[in-house]
């Protein structure tokens, strides 16, 4: 018993029993065979990622120190690409825009998703139907989303028509420097919040009903119940939603590319767009690789956070 619990404490959940028990019954060779089989199942995926993820990333790092352009023989230029980027106003603007976009859409998605999930979770009549209907936004191809919203946000489009009765004058949503980024962030939330609504709902449903009943008996109002039961118990889910939507929004390309083309000026140009333009419109692939390394560094931060949640959950399971 104590041995069993010891092995459970050191090994991740659910996997440790088979080899341990087998080894004593059928000998070490059988355990070894199982190890090989397990590894063989994972190997194709590892090889795939070596070829299409890790290999290319290492290559990107190498390219970022060269003047690679597919035409002339590449020169080793050291940090020149990075130095040029540091002084390039377009790169700086794109970097800032990327951060603004990540922060804006992550916060909006996390809040709207939570609000929607809480509303659905009240089990008012028709809640399930509303959930299903809202989830539709998530099934629409992003290209369709961008084309539809480009029309809706047109100066004579539906959004302005609907706002007119409230005394809002004509807004140039996508061509005004101060409005374009918020507009794209709002469209992003429209597309993705309903998905995270479902993730939140899974988290909300996992909170035991007794807690609320006990709190109600103690006379805690709805707001106190939310602040002292729902919020703390939902914290892991909220953290998960924030990290995943941050990763998601770091790679945004299509929405600004179609809706504003990065404009007006550079107001909505983000790093992924700059990578494409630098590498494939101007064929400066070394410089594009340097931008890739910067974008990678941003995503690294969120991925490390993601891993930490993951590790904590694993420990929780064991």
């Amino acid at each position, binding site marked *: 018993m104590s041995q069993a619990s010891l092995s459970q404490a050191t090994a991740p959940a659910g996997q440790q029993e*088979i080899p341990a028990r087998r080894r004593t019954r059928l000998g070490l060779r059988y355990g070894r065979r199982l190890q090989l089989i397990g590894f063989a*199942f994972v190997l194709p995926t590892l090889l795939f990622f070596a070829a*299409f993820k890790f290999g290319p990333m290492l290559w990107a790092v190498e390219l970022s120190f060269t003047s690679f352009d597919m035409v002339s023989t590449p020169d080793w230029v050291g940090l020149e690409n990075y130095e040029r980027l540091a002084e390039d106003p377009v790169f700086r603007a794109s970097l800032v825009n990327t951060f603004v976009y990540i922060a804006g859409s992550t916060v909006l998605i996390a809040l709207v998703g939570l609000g929607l999930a809480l509303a659905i979770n009240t089990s008012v009549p028709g809640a399930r139907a*509303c959930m299903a209907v809202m989830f539709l936004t998530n099934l629409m191809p992003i*290209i369709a989303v961008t*084309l*539809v919203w480009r029309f809706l946000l047109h100066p004579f489009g539906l959004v302005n028509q609907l706002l007119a009765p409230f005394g809002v004058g004509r807004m140039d949503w996508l061509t005004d420097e101060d409005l374009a980024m918020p507009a794209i962030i709002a469209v992003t939330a429209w597309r993705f919040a309903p998905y995270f609504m479902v993730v939140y709902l*899974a988290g909300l449903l996992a909170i035991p009903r007794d807690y609320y009943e006990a709190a109600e008996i103690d006379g805690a109002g709805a707001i106190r119940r939310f602040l002292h039961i729902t919020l703390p118990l939902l914290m892991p889910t909220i953290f998960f939603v924030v990290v995943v939507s941050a990763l998601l929004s770091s790679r945004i390309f299509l929405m600004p590319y179609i809706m504003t083309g990065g404009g007006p000026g550079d107001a909505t140009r983000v790093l*992924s767009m700059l990578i494409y333009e630098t590498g494939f419109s101007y064929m400066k*692939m070394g410089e594009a690789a340097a931008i890739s390394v910067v974008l990678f560094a941003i995503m690294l931060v969120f991925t490390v956070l993601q891993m930490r949640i993951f590790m904590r959950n694993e420990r929780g399971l064991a």
Partner: protein
Amino acid sequence: MNPAGAAAPSGRTQLLALRRWAGAALLAAIAFLFVLPIVWMTTTSFQAGEKMFQLTTEWIPSVLHPENYPNALSRADFPTYFLNSGVVSLAVTAGNIVFCTLAGYGLAKFRFPGDRFALLLILSTLMLPLEVTLVPTFLVIYNLGWMNTYQGIFGPLLVDAFGVFLMRQAILAVPSDYIEAARIDGAGEMRILWRVVVPQCKPALAVLAVFAFRDSWDQFLWPLTVVSKDEYRTFPLGLVKFGEYYGNPPTEQMAIAVLATIPVFLLFVALQRWVTRGFGLSGLK
């Protein structure tokens, strides 16, 4: 407690019922705002071209123009674009189902040296999307001679870390006893996977199928990078090219947008029974 309590209960239940219905109305209003753009897309696709930006949107067109659909399809080679998208998306979906299930099984039910490292390695690819590795991945495909081919488009998308993680979590929940029992009965590992593990992972597989299909159906930047010939364009590329010609009526663009939404929608509806059960898995656990 309350001396006048006789009247209070019915008043209170009435108030509660009122609040319930007010809540329902509010939620319905919010849901309506969320679907409004989708409704707009659909009605606009049946609208006469010149009515697009009239100040009062006609929610139910007085005259339906279903000919927007065939007209839109014939403006550019949309049948081919949709076919290309279909081929690519089916390949990506199949690849993810196969590889993610294999890897998920290996990670969930086997211990081998470095298994945890393998899992972290796989999860770490979440920070290496195609947007980041665009230039070198393009060079890989270019050097393989896969420009303007299907495998060039779907190749780098065949396995996604999210899918591996999803399948691992689902397979962790399959009781190891079943697997051991099958093993003692002399079943091979592939047979165990197919007969014992897969049938218990239908919800996760349904979620994986819907997301893999939708995400590859959605791909834009990657095909834009590796496709230059019209006959290999996927529909998002075709749609953008189509939208750039100002002569093309917005109503017809919306017709294509509706057509593009239908396959994802149908797949979701077909798998909905399992997808709703599988959603718990796509979240934290």
